[in-house]
Every structure is written in C-alpha cells, then in structure tokens.
C-alpha cells in the first residue's frame, strides 16, 4: 500500500517536473522567436519543410475524409430523408474539426518525428555544443525558426485541407449520390460561417506550435545515442498527438460553448 502511494507520488512529482521544464522551454523559445536576430534563411527552409512538403499528405488525408464524410452522412441521413443536410454537415465538420485535427495529426507524424530526430542527433553528436561554442544560441538558430514555421504554416495547410475536404465531399455527392452541383455549392456557402473557418485556423496555429515545440523539446533533451534519438522521436509524436486532442477540446469550448 505504502509503496503504491510512493509510486503514485513519484509519478506525480515527475509529471510536475516535466510540466515545469516544458513551460520554461516554451518561455525561452518564445522569447527568442520575437527578439532579433532572425535567421530568415532558416525560417524559409523550415517553412518549406513544414508547409510545402506536407501538402500531399494533408491534401490526400483531407480529400478522402471529405469523401467518406459525404458517403457516411448519406447512408445515415437517407433514412430520415434528410439528404439535403449533407453539404452543411460536410462543410462544418471539415472546417471546424476534421481539417485542422487530421491535418495536425498527419503533420505531427511527419514533422514532429523529423524535428526530434534531427535535433536529437545534433545533441548526441555534440553539434549543439559546437553551435554554442561558435557563439550561436541554439534556441535562436534551431528552435525559433521551427516554431515560427509551425505557427504560420499549419493555418495555411488547414485552409488547404478545408478546401480539398469540402471538394472531396462535393465529388462524392455529385458523381455518386446524384446531388445537383449548383444547389450543393449554394448550400455549402450559405451554411458555413466565418467563425467556423476562423476556429479551424486558430486550432491549426495552436497545433502547429504544439507539434514543433514537442519535436524541439524532445530532441533538445535527448541523450544516449541512437536509442535516445529514437525515444525522442516517439515521445515527440505521442505527446504532440495527445496535446492536439486536449487543446482541440478547449479551443472548441472557447469558440462554440455559450
């Protein structure tokens, strides 16, 4: 019994310690994001890496999500003769939730792991030490460009995911379910509100920050050779995914509960 309590206590203290370390890491990273000098070359390269090269993954995820959403809603709604609700269901689900969340998860897998592995390798091969001795702050040189790229690129990716997802729903509705194109588009445009899109973009920005922060944090603190780098990559993806789901709930609550 006592040992159980001890174990619980230790876990709780570890958790508090980790939370504190991440908070500190976040504060230091953010302070370097807003203070010059800015490494525009590196920011550009990271934006390309996070934004441009994630387009195929995010686009494919979004189009099939939109397609399956239309199909599933149809099989459900047809029973109540409510097929006309499909355009609105598709557009609201995609803009509010599925676009940013699924896009975020895909990018977490792609970018979070890559960042943790890259920075982790630099840590265990003393490249971060070398950076420091060359009077360059690793937060400024390695971490700030990645965070900036995450914050700015994810909303753009989300916008793409939203458009492609809605288009996927449109394709299935028109060519498979026999909807009238003009009515479908009119319904979509009528129903979607600015707030739906805005909430999706805000979510995406937060997810982008979480993904890059977790990638950098776990990479920066990795130790112990190849195994440590592998563990950092796993931790980055897992913690980013969980934090995406958590923060998704709270952002939704801020936007839509009243």
């Amino acid at each position, binding site marked *: 019994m006592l040992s159980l309590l001890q174990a619980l206590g230790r876990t709780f203290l570890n958790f508090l310690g980790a939370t504190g370390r991440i908070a500190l890491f976040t504060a230091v990273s953010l302070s370097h994001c807003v203070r010059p000098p800015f490494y525009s070359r590196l920011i550009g390269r990271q934006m390309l890496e996070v934004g441009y090269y994630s387009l195929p993954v995010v686009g494919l995820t979004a189009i099939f999500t939109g397609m399956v959403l239309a199909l599933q809603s149809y099989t459900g709604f047809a029973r109540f003769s409510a097929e006309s609700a499909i355009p609105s269901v598709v557009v609201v689900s995609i803009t509010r939730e599925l676009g940013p969340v699924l896009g975020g998860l895909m990018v977490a897998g792609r970018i979070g792991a890559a960042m943790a592995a*890259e920075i982790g390798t630099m840590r265990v091969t*003393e*490249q971060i*030490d070398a950076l420091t*001795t*060359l*009077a360059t702050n690793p937060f400024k040189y390695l971490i700030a460009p990645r965070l900036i790229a995450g914050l700015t690129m994810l909303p753009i990716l989300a916008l793409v995911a939203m458009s492609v997802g809605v288009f996927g729903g449109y394709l299935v509705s028109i060519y498979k379910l026999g909807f009238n194109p003009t009515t479908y588009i009119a319904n979509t445009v009528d129903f979607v509100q600015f707030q739906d899109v805005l909430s999706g973009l805000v979510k995406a920005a937060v997810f982008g920050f979480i993904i890059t922060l977790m990638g950098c944090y776990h990479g920066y603190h990795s130790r112990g050779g190849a195994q440590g780098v592998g563990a950092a990559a796993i931790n980055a993806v897992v913690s980013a995914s969980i934090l995406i789901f958590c923060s998704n709930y709270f952002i939704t609550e801020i936007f839509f509960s009243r």
Partner: protein
Amino acid sequence: MNKPSTPKIEIKDLHKSFGRNRVLQGINLTIMPGESVVIIGGSGSGKSVLLKCILGLIHPEQGSIKIDGVEITNLRGSELEEVRRKIGMLFQSAALFDSLNVWENIAFALIQGQGMARDEAQRTAIARLGDVGLRHEVAMLYPAELSGGMRKRVGLARAIASQPEIIFFDEPTTGLDPIMGSVIDNLIVKCVKELGATALSITHDMASAKRIASRIAMVFEGRIIWEGSTEEIDQTDNAYVQQFIHGRADGPIQMQIQDHFEGLPG
C-alpha cells in the same frame, strides 16, 4: 589592454561529478597569454570535461574559472556568448554540422558571428581548408562524405577560422597519419606564434605533445599531478608521468581491466 601578468585562463579548485562518478576533483591550472599548454592523462580522466567546463557547456559544482580575469562560472546569456567569441574549439568528435557543407561549417563563425558576406566567407574558408592540407574540392562536400581524419581537419579549420584569442584542441591529431599529424602540429604552433593565440590541447601522442607544447600538465584522478616544461618531462622522476609517457602497463597507474583468463584451467 590586459597587462601581461593577467593569466588568459585561470582555473582554481574545479570540481565536477556525474552522479557518483567524481571526474574533476580540484583542478588548478593557470595559462598565460601566448602559451601553448598540452594536457595529457588517461582515457576517461576528465580532459574533455575540463574543456567543456571552460566553455560553459558543463556547469562545475565548485571552483572558479577566469578568462582574462573575468569569472565565467556565473555568467549567463549574452555575457557568456561574449566570452565564447574569444574561444575556438575543436571537438574530439569534430562535431561538424551535417546539414551544412564543409565550407559553410568552416565559415560558420564568420557568417553568423561577424556577419561576413557569404562569398568572402567562402574564400576565407577555402584558404583555411588549404592550411589543414585539404584540397578546395572538399569545400562542397558534406561531413558525411568525409573520412574521419578529414572531418577532424575540417573541425580544426572551423576552430581557427575566426582567429580566436584562445583555441582548444581536443585530440587534434588522433586518427591522422604521422605526416599529416606533423602538419597539424605545425599549424597549431603557427597559430600560437603568428596569431598570438593561447592554446590548450589534449593529446595522447607524446611526440605531438612535445612539438606543440610550451608546457605540459598531466591529469590523474581529477587533479593535475604534474606540470612542467617540455624539457622537464623527460627528466622528471614522477612515477606517474614516467609510466604514462613510456606507456608501461605496470606502475602506479592501475588500469581497471578484467582478467578474462583468471580461473581458467591450465
């Protein structure tokens, strides 16, 4: 600006442990401007850790480190960065940035630190590449495409590229052939003589130590147990130093080696 009487580096009673492993247990070392000091000592005796403490990469538990008379153990942020600008470091593992090619590695401090234009930095980097005996075609290669000895030499070129006042060399000639080893030793001597730099090197190669050092210090069990000039090291009757420089297996320094044949029949 500094009076010649101010030591370039002054280390007093430096302690550092990793958990129960007490690595540095009271290092005292003073290095005057323009000196070239070589540290020798067994593998795992804490030589690399000592250099990293001076660079502020590892925080010692106790003791003082002064560079140009400024205490650095409690410096943070930009003040520490200012001190690091004076120092160039060759890491034991070279620690080249593998996302940058060779010349960008060498020119890193010039571009990031001094804001030199890229094409000028490239020319300077290629000149340094020549100094360490590498052809200019190597400039465009990436660290993964180099041999171990080539990486070491690129690391050396990076350490001296910004012409720092203080240069640390962690095993500069390990992994090089004897001829290239001499070339590098001469380069280090040249850095000290011509640039007026202060050098602190680590090496296991006694011939190379004698070529580059004006003074040699030996580390054993976390302390400096012997210090003296290059001439004195052959004459000393210190049993530890004698054993080390002649590489004898028996003597006062006991290596922790398990005897695998112990207890075998026969």
